[in-house]
């Protein structure tokens, strides 16, 4: 049991090191938002026009914004996790296509079939925040589900690593006193903060 726990502790942590590193850096960025984004309120992210074109096909009669978005993304070879923005004009559909590095905003104007594709200007802080917040099960894409499974695996690791660490600590008799003090100090401080915050 002990050996198995040690091996799981080690290999799980090694496999998930990129995820843990990403969540660590992004947490630091969000904890120091003013340092990375300037004083609040934060400005909206900047976009630059990537290309403009006339939509070559036909949208079905009476298509909903979601149907338009799906057809548009498929035609532009940009199919993937997206959301349809609240329409600010009845003849416009704005699609936000998620992407870790280069999210895009695609605006389709129905009367003239004009499509404007804008790419978000890259910012390191924005990238880490997007990755931190990215989930997956709500989208209908296998890749997003796979990402969500890795997020759940990271959650499992966050629960297993400290618990298996406690098990391993308890096996080392020489570390019991200092370990118990560390554990007790941590829980005491956490308890105080839980009460006052």
């Amino acid at each position: 049991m002990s050996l198995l726990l040690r091996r799981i502790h080690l290999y799980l942590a090694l496999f998930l090191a990129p995820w843990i590193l990403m969540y660590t850096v992004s947490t630091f960025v969000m904890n120091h938002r003013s340092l990375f984004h300037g004083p609040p309120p934060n400005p909206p992210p900047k976009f630059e026009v990537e290309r403009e074109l006339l939509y070559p096909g036909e949208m079905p009669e009476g298509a909903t914004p979601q149907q338009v978005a799906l057809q548009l993304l498929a035609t532009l070879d940009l199919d993937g996790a997206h959301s349809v923005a609240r329409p600010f004009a009845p003849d416009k559909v704005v699609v936000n296509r998620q992407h870790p590095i280069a999210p895009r905003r695609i605006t389709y104007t129905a009367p003239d079939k004009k499509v404007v594709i804008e790419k978000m200007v890259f910012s390191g802080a924005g990238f880490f925040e997007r990755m931190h917040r990215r989930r997956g099960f709500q989208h209908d894409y296998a890749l997003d589900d796979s990402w969500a499974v890795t997020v759940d695996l990271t959650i499992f690791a966050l629960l297993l690593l400290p618990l298996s660490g406690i098990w391993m600590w308890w096996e080392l008799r020489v570390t019991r006193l200092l370990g118990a003090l560390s554990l007790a100090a941590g829980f005491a401080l956490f308890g105080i903060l839980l009460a006052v915050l």
Partner: protein
Amino acid sequence: MKFPHVNRRTHLYLGLFLTPWILMYGLSSIPFSHADFFERRDKALGLPLWTKTFDGPFDLGPIPETGPLRPLGGRVVRDFKMEDSSYGAFRQGPNQLNIYVHTFWKSTQFKYFIEEKRLVAEDRRFRWEHFLTGMHARGGFEDQRFFPILWAVLIDLVCLAFLAWIASGIYMWWSLPGLRNWGWIAILGGLGSFALFLARL
């Protein structure tokens, strides 16, 4: 005392001290990752999420179009004697300012209607998943009181600890030659999958 010994002990004691935070981040990530499930479960209860506790005239004076809104939120928080809570102020629309007041145990939102000079206060029903996600999302150094700053410093310590655990873990793994092959497979498997997600997600 040699470096490998210090390395192992630091890895261990830092881990034990920060155990509550790591468990909290692990548990609180579940409602974030499965938000739809928790929303459906709560909706089935048929209980209102917000309860109105105040609705009346209130004058916050002129609201700036740009710039920080926190001082305005501070006035509402003081008037309602909620100075012990953390808060943030956001413009919800051209005619609405929202102020969110939050402790780990209780949340209140204020809606200030600028033209009408009217304020509505609503308390949020306690939900365990909100309790957890509220802790998860808490951070930053904007609130200058002692305990919120201490919480933010501890978040930085957790970040530092994760970096230390990765570095010290890799060092310990490398010190055990018998585990190198499987370790390489785990590291390269992780890096490869993560890179694939970065490119394709």
